[in-house]
């Protein structure tokens, strides 16, 4: 293990969350749980970025009374990335949810394997 694990504990937590989300999205049969996993994964990435930007004693990059000093504000880029990422994940989860609704209305189950089994039974 490298030197900075303790210093970067927030990122470490973010990574663990990412793993959990990945696991859930990959393995859970239940579609809703999959979507939750997706959101956990994305949130972990936002946590990572946000913590990357944070430096103690500096404030959010909104210029107050005209002071434009690098020492005073944090790096604005990660915040921007987080904004973009949030929008993307919102749209993706909406799409996933709508697919889930369709599948549920058709097969009355949320379990992906059962859905495939029923499909194969239909022989469609």
């Amino acid at each position, binding site marked *: *293990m*490298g*030197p*900075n*694990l303790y*210093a*970067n504990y*927030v*990122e*470490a937590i973010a*990574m*663990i969350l*990412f*793993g*959990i989300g*990945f*696991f859930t999205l*990959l*393995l859970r049969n239940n579609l809703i749980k999959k979507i939750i996993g997706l959101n956990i994964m994305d949130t972990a990435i936002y946590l990572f970025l946000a*913590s*990357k*930007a*944070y*430096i*103690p004693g500096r404030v*959010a*990059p*909104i*210029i107050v009374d*005209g002071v*434009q*000093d*690098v*020492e005073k*504000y944090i*790096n*604005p*880029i*990660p*915040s*921007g990335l987080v*904004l*973009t990422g*949030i*929008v*993307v994940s*919102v*749209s*993706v989860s*909406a*799409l996933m*949810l*709508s*697919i889930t*609704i*369709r599948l549920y209305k058709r097969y009355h189950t949320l379990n992906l*394997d059962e859905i495939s*089994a029923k499909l*194969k*039974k239909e022989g469609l």
Partner: protein
Amino acid sequence: MSRKISEEQYKKNLSVRFRNWISGETDPYLGNMEILPQRDASPDEKTRKKHMEDQTRVVNRTYDVENNRIYRFFNAFYKKAALLCCLVLIAILLLTVSYLPKTTDPHSPGNNEVAERYITRGMQETGAVNAVTGMILTYRAFDTFGETNVLFVATCCVMILLMLEEGSKKQAEDENDAKYEPKNDAILQTIASVLCPIIFIFGIYVILNGHLSPGGGFSGGAIMGAGMILYVSAFGFKKTQRFFNEEVYKVAKISALCVYGLIGAYYYITGANGIENHIPLGIPGHILSSGIILPINIAVGLEVACTMYAFYALFRKGGL
């Protein structure tokens, strides 16, 4: 002494096979490259029924998730393997983290000339007090336009899935509302009639102050969308459709996106070709300032509000 062996034994034995192979009698493609002759007569009723039964039996035995041992074994194995993979993934990522630059270190590579310029000269160049908004809407405007389009495409996909025709829309709405939604709930309506105006006003405020304070088009639009959802769930679709139906939605969405796109295109092309663009930056800190950011914020806010409401409406009754 030799004993007589039967025909098929003889066919099986090695030397005969070899001889056949030599003389090209055996056909390597026979059996797996068959050009099967088409079955001419259709099978009679009984056999077909029998076939169907076998089919269903086989299918059931194969796909019933509970009792199919192979299936369950595979499932368990798959789960464990994948769990292992994910643990390995986590371990690798932790290893990465442990080697990353220190978070709170002001000299980490992240805080380089780029961030510095955004902070120190951002206000003069973009006219926005809020450096984040300034960054995502002028320096990295292309990303943000793409991101708005992500929302747009997602709405279209949801429409593909959940949009219903007029007739079925009606009854779907009725049964849904009957099942899930309170009809004319007095408490809800009272609270909503108090809250909705405030929410709307707050949303508009967040949008308009995007370049001065935290917030901007996306957050403000989300707030307004929430307000509309509250209104719908309190007063039902009939009242909502009086001021927000499909046509209004289309017009609002398309006009918002087009405005954004036009401003964007104008900005990119003028910027790239060194033509100075005629959108005044104004005095930073005033409400009417910061060049293209304010109109883009308004457009984005409109778009996001519409999208949020559209998601809700599509999910609930398959139409606007």
